[in-house]
Structure formats: C-alpha cells, structure tokens
C-alpha cells in the first residue's frame, strides 16, 4: 500500500517534470489543454455571435420583427435594452464553469497519469 502511494507520487512528479521540461509528452499535454480551452471560448463566442450578432441582420431583412410589441414595447428595445445583459452573463457563467472543468481534467490527468 505504501509502495503504491509512493509510486503514484513518483508518477505525478514525473509528469510535472515533463511539463516543466517540455518533453514531447509534456508538450502534448499542454497543447491538449490549450486546444480544449480555445475550442470552448470559440464555441461560446459563436453562441453570442449568433444570438446577438444575428439581430441587426434579422431586423434588416425582416422589418416586421421590429414592429412586434410585447407589453407595449417594441421587440428590438426589449431584446437589446433588457434581455441581452442576462444573456451575456449566462454565457459568461457557463464559460467559467466549463473552463474550470477543463482545468480540473488537466490537473487530474497530470496527477493520475495512469488513468
């Protein structure tokens, strides 16, 4: 049991050293993390690009949308003036959660490389 624990720590140490010394394994690990985080950021910006960035185009090609009123207020005013802010916060909240999960996966991988 003790031997197993120390072997685990050896492996963790070795992976950290590989990261720090930029061996091929260490480099591949970092590339994987960077790719995962970048893909996450791109996916969420795509959500915003479609959700918000599509609005000017929508209003331009379908002027009828702008005349729809909800509770006496025209839809564009509600979407831009009110709804956009909680939407941005929700995307940001999702990003923080998912980015931290990516980092947790990376930490687990380094500390328990045998799995």
């Amino acid at each position: 049991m003790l031997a197993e624990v120390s072997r685990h720590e050896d492996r963790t140490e070795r992976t950290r050293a590989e990261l720090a010394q930029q061996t091929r394994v260490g480099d591949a690990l970092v590339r994987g993390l960077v790719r995962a985080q970048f893909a996450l950021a791109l996916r969420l910006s795509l959500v915003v690009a479609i959700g918000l960035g599509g609005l000017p185009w929508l209003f331009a090609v379908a002027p009828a949308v702008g005349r729809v009123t909800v509770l006496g207020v025209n839809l564009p005013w509600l979407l831009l003036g009110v709804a956009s802010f909680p939407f941005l916060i929700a995307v940001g909240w999702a990003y923080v959660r998912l980015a931290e999960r990516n980092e947790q996966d990376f930490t687990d991988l380094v500390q328990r490389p045998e799995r």
Partner: protein
Amino acid sequence: MGNGFVVPAIVAVTLVTVGIGFYGLRLARTTSDFLVASRAISPTWNAAAIGGEYLSAASFLGVAGLILKYGVDVLWYPVGFAAGYLALLLFVAAPLRRSGAFTLPDFCELRLGSRRLRTLATVFVIFIGWLYLVPQLQGAGLTLATVTGSPYPLGALLVAVVVTANVALGGMRAITFVQAFQYWLKLTALAVPAIFLALQWQADARPAVTPPDGPAFRTATTVVVEHRATLTLPDGRIQEVRPGDELSFAAGDPVPEVSGVATDAADWLLPSTAGDDDRGLFATYSLILATFLGTMGLPHVLVRFYTNPDGAAARRTTLVVLALVGAFYLLPTIYGVLGRIYTPQLLVTGQTDAVVVLLPGAALGDGTTGRLLAALVAAGAFAAFLSTSSGLLTSVAGVISTDVLGRGSVRGFRLATVIAGAVPAVLALNLAGLDVSQVVGLAFAVAASSFCPLLVLGIWWRGLTDLGAAAGILVGGGAAVGAVLVTVFGPPLSGWPATLTAQPAAWTVPLAFTVMVAVSVATRRRAPADIGATMLRLHAPEALRL
C-alpha cells in the same frame, strides 16, 4: 439654474474621492505596494473597482444622449460595452493574469521578447489613453456648465487637476477603494432618479414616447441653439440656425425636425432596415466589433487584472464585473426614452449628452425632490469623470514612468502622472466640439484593431512572431488611428467614406488579424524558442503549482 444642491453634491463627491485617496496614501509604502496594491484586494472589491473605473462619461451621459437622439440603433453601445467583458473573459482574463504582465507593453515583452515591440505598444497605450481621457474631461466641462452655468473650461480643468493630484499622491491602492465606491455611487445616482422618473411618467398618465404627430414640447420653452443645424418647421419651412440663436415654442408645439437627428417616430423606434442603404448595417456591425473586442485592449482595464491573486480569480472577477456593468446599462435607456417626452428641446440645441443631468429637473419640476435628484445625478456624473480618468491616468502614467522615463521609482511615477494628465487637459480645452460617445467609440476601435489581435493571437497561437505582431499593430491599429484623425480633424465627409472612417472597426480589425497572421507565417523562424514554456505558464491551472 438655481439648484442649490448641485454644487455641494459635486464638492462632496470630489472631497470623498480625495479623502479616500489620502486614506490610501497612508497605506502605500513601497513602489510595488503603490503600483499593484499588493494584490491584497478581495474579488468583490476588485470587481466593483473595475466596474467603477469602466463606467465613464460615455456610459453615464453619452449612451442616454445617443438613445435620445438616434433611438434603437444605438442600443448596441451599452450592449457592446458590457459584451466587451465577455470577450475579455473568454479569451484573455485567466491567461493574461497568469502571464504576470502588468501592462500591455509588459505582455509584449514577456510573450515575444522584443523591446521594439514593447515601444510600439507603449505608443498605442498612450494614444488610446489620451483619446479616452479627452472626452471624460469634456464631459466634466459640459456637465458643470449645464448645471451651474460655469464656463466650460472650469469643469474640465477641475477634474484634470483633482485626478492628477490624487493619482500622483495615492497610487493604485487608493484608486481601488475610490473606484469601488464610485461604482456604487454611479449605480445609485442613475437608479434612484430612474424610479422617480418612472413614477412621474405614470402620474402624468403615461404620455406616449412616440406620439403620432412626432415629439412635442410639454411646456413653453425657449431654446438657445448650441450647434449649427437645419430645422424643418411643422409648416414645411426650412430654417438654418446658428449657435446663440433663440427659438421660442409654446406648450404643445411640435418639435421641429432637426437635420441628422431621428425626429421621425419610426426612424427612432425601429431598427434600420436593409434596402437602398447598407451603410447603417455596416456601421452597426462595425460598432459591435469595436465594442466587443475593444474592451480587452483598453489600457486601464488590463492593469486591473494584475490585482487578482491568480488566473481562476481573474475569471471570476470578470464574471462579477460583467454582472455589475450589465445591471448599470439597464438604466441609461430609461433616460434616453423619457428624454423624448420631457426634454425634447435637447434635440434642437444638439446638447443631447446633457439629458441625464437635465431630465430629473425637467420631469419632476423645481420642487425639493426634483432638485435633490438632479444633484444626485450630477454627483454621479462627476464620479464617472473622476473614476475613469483616474484609471486611465494611472495606466498611462505607469507606462510613461517605466517605458519612457525609464524609472520605476515613486518620484518617476509622480512626474509621469503630471505629464500624462497635462496633455489631455490641453486637448480638452481646445477640442470642445467633439461628441463624447463618438470619441470613446473611436478609442474602442483603435484598441480593437491593435491590442485585441495581439492578445488573442499571443495567448492562443504559438506561431505569433514579434515582426507579425508589430506589422499587425502598425497596419490595423495605424488604419484605425488614421480614421480617427480624419474624423476628428479632417474635412466633413459623406456617403461610404464617412461611414468607413467614423466606424472603422469592421475593416480595421480583420485587417489587423490578417496582417498579423500572414507576417507571422512568413517570419515563422522568429517565433520564440521558449514558446512551450510560455504556453504552459499562460494556461496551466494554479492547482498544479508547477
């Protein structure tokens, strides 16, 4: 204007700002303490401070003024100002904090190891900082002139002097307390009067924002014109007016149509549509690009991230900032909309930036409530000028003291602060006619076309080289700077040239990214040899303790 509460309110805000500055002074001991506040600032304080620093004259006054003037199309300003923090969160916040860079020039040197690139970044930081400081000082001059009738230079100089002294003496720890206090002050100063304004609108039997016959004067009003304009009177006559002209209107008179202003209800109420004119759509997307991507390139925004203890904290702080800023931006729309009912004369005078300051008095009358609320709004406006100018000045002065004067001492920082504060003060006194929000929008466009590609590619792409980064900043940022100079100093343009220079981001941002990538690929041998170690440092979670 006879409101006895305004001047005491402005004096109180200024004194509290200076007071907290001196309280901070006692805590500032060493240079490192002085510049980065020892990183001992809690995330909530830090987030409120970032929000306080960010919400400038453009947010507090300009957005409402634009909405009053142009309607739904300019709602993209507040949306973009808030969304900028989302882009910052997604692409920059955590890695930038982990890089250990304190300023943008620091980041250039850490990532690409080039002194010359560092110098180029310094030039852009100073340009953007000054471009952003001028409208803050102008806003101060305009506000003080509107509420007290003082000459325009007084407000501009007052803010310039208070901020310069405070930054020079207190450094950043003081500024953090000041900024956090000012976020809450600004939020209160818009939110409380907004509630009263909404109640007043109810009590007035909800007058229509866009009456079928166009906006009308509710009371007899005498208008003193401040900007040259062409008016179309209700009977179809066309009248040219010049600054100083006086026009009198009786209660119920329709507001004349003003050239360049969305007086027509449909123009104001509905988004611009496709058809014979695609410039509106281009300008909208340009504005979206500039504000979404420009925030991360603003010098005073980045400095703040260094005060987070680690990358994960930087991410959470940014999310809190996004929420705080988003909550604030719900409010200016209310002022812009109710301004159509209660202060239509601003459409004729052209001083729409004054709507936030004038609306409480106009809607609630001259009673004590109206005057107290007007004073509260004026105090909030001053908080906006003081806080944003402080943040900008701190970062411009930091860059000047380390990169231009080459001294890291407290004395060097103080000298740099005086230099950094004097230049925009002189500019603000000589460029009185610029529109607050437009200049701020141009600063965003320059930041989005220079530092945004540098940060995004530098953090995520191993292939970036020093030559690629420099070429991208010079071509993209340079094009945006050129557009700014043409807009501010050049001859009046019309048609596509006017749109391309007034809202340049939609072509300068892609240009900057393309040049940066192309030149980096062409010079790929120059990519730093230690890029692997740098990427590890930027992206490895702190939990590993490497």
